[in-house]
Each structure stands twice: as structure tokens, then as C-alpha cells.
């Protein structure tokens, strides 16, 4: 190739590098904003205008909210551990490990969570070993095991999203497979993994209303107890629904903020 017939000074612009996109603020009237503050406004309005029974219902719920969070946080921790093991297992080249991990996911995916709860608490409760399992532990075990399977898929997708070149480079530098996973792949993969984990957390919090069948006094159970004694079904469940809504919306905002912060490979 002939090069440079004209020797023209080429002007090179030096900018600030790739810009990290800043999400445009959609203003006040997003669906999220309207629902979140709408729900709070409705709660406040009901409690102020009709303190009997709405305020009485609301006062009955806080320890239930606390238990709901307890179940959710403990379950998500358990599911993260199980999910990491399962995710790595499903990516493993060892046939046996892979088979075990995949079978676990298949089994758990095929059984409704409510049935799993009953099974772990009431069915296994007949066995000597599980007799002293407190309902809270059974609830956390069931939710953790169930969500561990879904979390496994999240981890697998996150690890898969890291370019093959990364592990090739790491192996060329003399890292073994485990070290590669530990020091090269996972530190990058967690960006992809974290947002869906946040979403699983919210889904788990909503599903935790099922643990009320184990006589665990969570938010749903408290609402049901109030309703069954006062016969104020409409009032009790309206309040319970609103409280769940406020909690999950608050959390989902946190997740979307987190997504924005982590996601600076994306371009607008």
C-alpha cells in the first residue's frame, strides 16, 4: 500500500475516554414513584381517617414484618451458598458433579414451594433426626434450598458472561482452574450476578408469605390472625398488601440503583 501522499497534520482529539452513561432522570411521574408514594399515602390516609380499624391492623403487623425480613435474609444467604456451589457444579467438567448439580435443580424446579415447605416441616418432621427442627429453620431451609436452585442459574449465567479470553489469559499466566475462578472470573462476574440476586431477594420476600402455613408468625400470618379474629378481612388484607407493596418497591428501587452503578459497560 502506498502510504501518505499528502502529509497533512492530523488533529487528534483527546477526550475523557468512554463516558459512563448517566441514566436520565425520568422526573416525578414514573410508575414506581406513583405506586410507592401512592401506597404510603393510602396507608397514612386510612390510618388518619379511620384509625379504627386500620391503625389497629397496622399496629398488629410490625413483628410480622420483622420475621418476614428474618426469613428472607437468612434464606437468601443460604441460597447464595447453594447457588454458588450449584452454578460451579453445572459448569464443572466433572461428569458426576455436573449430574448432581443438574439433578438438584431439576428436582427443586419441579416441586411447588408450598409443597416443599410442607414436606420439610411436616413430612420430614416424622423422622427422628428432624423432630426438633424449629419452624423458622424449616422455613429458611425450604426457601433457601428452593431459591438455591434458581440462584445456581444466576451464577452460571454470570460466570458464562465473562469472555473466554479471560480464563485463557489467566491459565497462560500459570493460574490453575480454581485460582482462575477465584481471582479472575468471579471478581468480574459478580457485576452481572448482583442485580438478578437483588431481584431474587424481592421474589423470595414475596414468596416468604407462604411460610405462614408452618405457623411462623410472619407478616401474612399476622394479617390472617387479625382477620380471623375480628372478621375484618377487607381491612386486614388491604393493609397487609400495602405493607408488602411498600417494602418490595423500596427494595426494587435499591436494585435498579445498584444496576445503574454496576452497569458501566452499557452504552446508551
Amino acid at each position, binding site marked *: 500500500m502506498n502510504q501518505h501522499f499528502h502529509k497533512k497534520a492530523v488533529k487528534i482529539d483527546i477526550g475523557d475516554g468512554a463516558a459512563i452513561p448517566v441514566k436520565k432522570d425520568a422526573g416525578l411521574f414514573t410508575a414506581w414513584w406513583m405506586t410507592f408514594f401512592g401506597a404510603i399515602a393510602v396507608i397514612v390516609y386510612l390510618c388518619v381517617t379511620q384509625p379504627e380499624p386500620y391503625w389497629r391492623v397496622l399496629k398488629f403487623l410490625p413483628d410480622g414484618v420483622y420475621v418476614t425480613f428474618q426469613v428472607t435474609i437468612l434464606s437468601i444467604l443460604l441460597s447464595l451458598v447453594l447457588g454458588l456451589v450449584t452454578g460451579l457444579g453445572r459448569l464443572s467438567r466433572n461428569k458426576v458433579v455436573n449430574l448432581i448439580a443438574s439433578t438438584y435443580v431439576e428436582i427443586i424446579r419441579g416441586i411447588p414451594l408450598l409443597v416443599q415447605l410442607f414436606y420439610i416441616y411436616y413430612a420430614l418432621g*416424622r423422622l427422628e433426626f428432624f*423432630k*426438633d427442627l424449629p419452624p423458622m429453620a424449616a422455613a429458611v431451609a425450604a426457601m433457601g434450598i428452593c431459591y438455591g436452585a434458581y440462584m445456581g442459574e444466576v451464577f452460571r449465567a454470570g460466570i458464562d458472561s465473562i469472555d473466554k479470553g479471560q480464563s485463557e489469559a489467566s491459565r497462560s499466566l500459570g493460574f490453575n482452574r480454581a485460582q482462575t475462578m477465584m481471582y479472575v472470573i468471579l471478581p468480574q462476574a459478580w457485576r452481572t450476578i448482583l442485580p438478578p440476586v437483588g431481584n431474587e431477594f424481592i421474589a423470595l420476600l414475596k414468596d416468604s408469605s407462604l411460610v405462614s402455613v408452618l405457623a411462623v408468625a410472619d407478616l401474612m400470618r399476622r394479617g*390472617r390472625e387479625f382477620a380471623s*379474629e375480628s372478621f375484618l378481612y377487607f381491612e386486614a388484607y388491604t393493609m397487609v398488601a400495602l405493607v408488602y407493596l411498600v417494602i418490595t418497591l423500596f427494595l426494587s428501587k435499591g436494585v435498579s440503583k445498584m444496576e445503574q452503578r454496576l452497569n458501566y459497560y452499557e452504552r446508551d
Partner: protein
Amino acid sequence: MRTRIALALLALFLMAGNALAKDVVFAVDATYPPMEMVDANKNIVGFGPEIVAAIGKAAGFNPVLKNTAWDGIFAGLASGKYDAIASSVSITDERKQTMDFTDPYFEVKQGVVTAKDAAIKTVEDLKGKTIASQMGTTGYFVCKKIEGATAKSYDEIGLAVEDLYNGRLDAVIADDAVASNYALQHEQYSQKLTLAFLIAPEKPEYLGFAVNKGNKEIADLINKGLAAIKANGEYDKIYAKWFGSK
């Protein structure tokens, strides 16, 4: 409307000789042996359903039992899903504010079921213990009133008894007929559990059939039948069948 009249006439002709029996739909939570439960053939059986059938025969209506979960059984009555509730409903002042009751058909005390080796003989012994009953039942109200005890509520009384059997609870409180059925008659539970004592309510507690506020028609119909079977000995016969003689 015209077809309806025609149909009614047709029905009258077909049932010539039979009085035209009216359907009365009763809600039953059939998880409360021996009062009401589901047998192996999925039929609703027990003391309550037999009484209802006898009342229907005596008062000339056709009782239809509708299996309904306890949780929401009163809401279903209010929204008109059925005419009455025949599900061991205790007549309480609080309930009377939202519904009407027929005459009582059974007197209950609360039975306390414990493990045989538990040293629980009085209400005082329940201090510091975990006790349970079915959510929204008089048994659970008693649980909550006992000082120093942790009260837990279950969806079904059977689940509470199961947990007691597995040693996760110290006591279960339920209507005496139900409590004694689990603790003394049940093949498996009776080996390990016992009916420790009865809690007599401050004022006598009765079971009645619940109907919607102001639904005098159904209430009167049931009362008529109930009075009839009490008079002709039918009630005592059914009672003896389920609980032995008085």
C-alpha cells in the same frame, strides 16, 4: 320467568307426592374430627354433618354441604356463597355482632392435649410453654389468654396436633370432643398424647349454626328441625354414636 314457572310446574308433577325440598347450602371445614371430617371415600362425615342431615329430614329441606377452609369461612357467609355454616362454630358475643346463630346444638369445653409424660395438669403449668390451636378458634383465644405462654396458630387443628406429637409443642387446646378424639381415640397419637385437663369457660360455650345477620328464614328452618330431632330422640342417638352416652 315463564320457563321457570314451567320448570317449577314440571318439577312439581315429577315430584308428585314429595314436598318440594329446598336446597340449603352449609359451609363445612371438614378438618375437625370427630365433629366434621372427610372419610376415605371423600364424603363429609362426623357428628355435625349427621345432625345437619337429620335436621334437614325433620324440617323438610335438602342440606348441601360445601367443604370450605376455616380461614375465610365467615367472609364467604357474608358474601352469600352459602346459607349457613355448620362447622362447630362457637356462639360468641363478638361473632354475634356480624352474624346470627341458631339455637345451640352442642356444648363445648376446651380440652388441653399434652404428651403423656408432660407434667402439665393445670393452666398454671402452661406458663413458659409453647401452646397452640387453630387460627381464629375459641381454642386459640384461650391460648392467647394464658399468661406467660407462647401462643401459636395453625391453619388446621391437625397440623398443631402433628407438631405436638413430634415434640415441637407443649400443648394443643381445642374443643373437647376434638381434643379427646385426637388424644384418646386416634390410633397413633393416643399412644403418646393424652387429654390432660379441660378448661371450663367462664360462661358455658355452645356451638350453633351461623347464618347471615337477619336471615330469619334459614335460622327458623334449622331451629324447627333441631327442636324436632331433640324431641324425637334422633339427636341423642347421633350423640351416643359419636361420643358414647351422655
